């Protein structure tokens, strides 16, 4: 089943012609409309005319999350705000979020790609989609929502959380597709089991899970517990949001919609492009986006490109399940967390040179984040209540800054491991 067969199954030669034509147009636009890109091109002595084949892409400059932050909030938009119909944001590496804007065409394109994803996962106009991704600045909720409407499915915009209500709706409304983070899917399955509800009595057939890394084992677990097929979806707000890539019924890698995005894999150290099949950092170029086209975005996600044809008939390249990150970003219950965000909180609290460590665990099916903070002389008090207040202040501040609840533990000075003078910031004990 396809949503748009002529594009999804386009012969590769034709697809590459289309990509080149769109890439050239995109490069021209960003060169002329965005000073940031023009400067980067000029630094490398490049002109838009230097792109005459897809292979030329590797000569072009990268874009990073830092670039987005430096041009906060609208510096990389190529159109005036009156043409922007929606703004989303994701967590930045420090206090300020990363902001993206969509034109009417961008929303249409996103809806189209999301509709393709839903169909690849077996959904159709008859489906009842229970969308438990968060609605808001996060792209998950609205991304799925618009795709489902485009498809003509019935979307239930329940958003995240409130498990009892999720289960009631799943039972009463006859949801056939569930969309949420994989860890929430596991949690739901556990609550169902505890409530003595047999998943066979539910109409749910498929789940589309993303926004955090998960493994084949978790897939098997979810499929067994919920009696569904579980599909991996990939996306990031800087590129578009959910729906950049999706697994088909073969469940052997995620098809990247190449008529809109060009994926590359690079070595994160040398920045050289790696051949298909080799593992490295995923880099994506948007070739049709209007609001904020992004050239060679370093996603920091580690994967490899699968170039062999897929038996589903789609011709678009696949990426393997994500294998990790090339930076220290953590995904806690679907929320992106950078150690530097925690560091800014500690600086605000009064730590002059914060030493801290983030310990991530998976407690049952939920991720927990513990922040160990070395107590400094300046913040030490000989009263227990003062220290407990300090822990609480740090905890509250982190919660309001990054939206994740944490356990804060004060530890003795010089007790956290240091490598080459810098603390080892992250200990991830999750087995995923």
């Amino acid at each position: 089943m396809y949503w748009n067969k002529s594009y999804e199954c386009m012969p590769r030669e034709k697809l590459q012609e289309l990509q080149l034509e769109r890439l050239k147009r995109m490069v021209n636009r960003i060169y002329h409309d965005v000073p940031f890109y023009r400067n980067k091109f000029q630094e490398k002595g490049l002109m838009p005319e230097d792109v005459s084949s897809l292979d030329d892409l590797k000569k072009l400059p990268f874009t990073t999350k830092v670039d987005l932050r430096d041009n906060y909030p609208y510096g990389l938009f190529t159109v005036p705000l009156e043409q922007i119909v929606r703004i989303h944001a994701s967590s930045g590496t420090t206090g300020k979020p990363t902001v993206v804007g969509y034109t009417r065409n961008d929303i249409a394109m996103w809806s189209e790609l999301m509709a393709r994803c839903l169909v690849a996962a077996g959904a159709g106009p008859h489906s009842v989609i229970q969308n438990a991704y968060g609605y808001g600045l996060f792209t998950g909720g609205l991304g799925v929502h618009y795709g489902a409407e485009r498809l003509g499915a019935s979307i239930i915009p329940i958003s995240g959380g409130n498990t009892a209500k999720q289960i009631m709706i799943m039972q009463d409304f006859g949801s056939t597709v569930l969309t949420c983070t994989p860890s929430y899917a596991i949690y739901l399955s556990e609550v169902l089991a505890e409530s003595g509800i047999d998943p066979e009595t539910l109409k749910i057939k498929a789940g589309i899970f993303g926004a955090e890394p998960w493994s084949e084992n978790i897939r098997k677990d979810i499929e067994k517990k919920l009696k569904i097929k579980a599909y991996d979806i990939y996306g990031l707000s800087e590129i578009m949001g959910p729906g950049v890539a999706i697994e088909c019924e073969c469940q052997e890698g995620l098809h990247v919609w190449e008529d809109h995005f060009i994926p590359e894999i690079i070595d994160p150290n040398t920045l050289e492009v790696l051949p298909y099949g080799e593992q490295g950092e995923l880099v994506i170029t948007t070739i049709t986006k209007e609001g904020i086209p992004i050239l060679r975005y370093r996603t920091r996600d580690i994967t490899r490109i699968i170039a062999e044809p897929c038996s589903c008939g789609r011709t678009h390249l696949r990426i393997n399940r994500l294998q990790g990150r090339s930076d220290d970003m953590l995904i806690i219950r679907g929320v992106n967390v950078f150690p530097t965000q925690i560091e800014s909180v500690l600086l605000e609290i009064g730590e002059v040179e914060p030493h801290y460590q983030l310990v991530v665990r998976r407690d049952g099916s939920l991720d927990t984040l513990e922040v160990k903070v070395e107590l400094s002389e300046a913040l030490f008090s000989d009263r227990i209540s003062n220290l407990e207040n300090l822990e609480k202040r740090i905890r509250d501040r982190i919660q309001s800054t990054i939206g994740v609840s944490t356990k804060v533990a004060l530890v003795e000075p010089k007790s956290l491991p240091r490598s080459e003078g810098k603390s080892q910031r992250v200990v991830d004990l999750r087995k995923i």
Partner: protein
Amino acid sequence: MIRQVSIFIENHEGRLNHILKILAENKINIRSLNIADATDFGIVRLILQETEKGIEVLKKNDIISTVTPVLAAEISDDPGGLSTLVNALTEAKINIVYAYSFLPKKTDNAIIIIRVDDDVQQKAIETLEKVAEVNLLDRETLLLK
């Protein structure tokens, strides 16, 4: 006013021992010890025979300490002795943040270490000086007891 050394420690085995060893190796006598504990950390409060030297060796070993002024009050080791002291502070509306006993070597009386809020310290001293049954001790006298 007595200078008490307060030390932050994590609440797991070996941490107190670590501090006591450092003091022992540097031949610093501990005259009194009190431990307050929260869920995952604690505060060790010490009165040392040599406060300055103690702080110095702790710092050298990367141990955070702070000096807190506390009161030392000598009272008779009889029923009602402590009550008289606490009663006087209560009537003066002075809150005791914490208190513990000091073990004297050379007197049969009891000695109580009291921590009050910084802003009422002077008032606490004046209050207790007026109580006949209470003998406020300075550092020299305390360490001789």
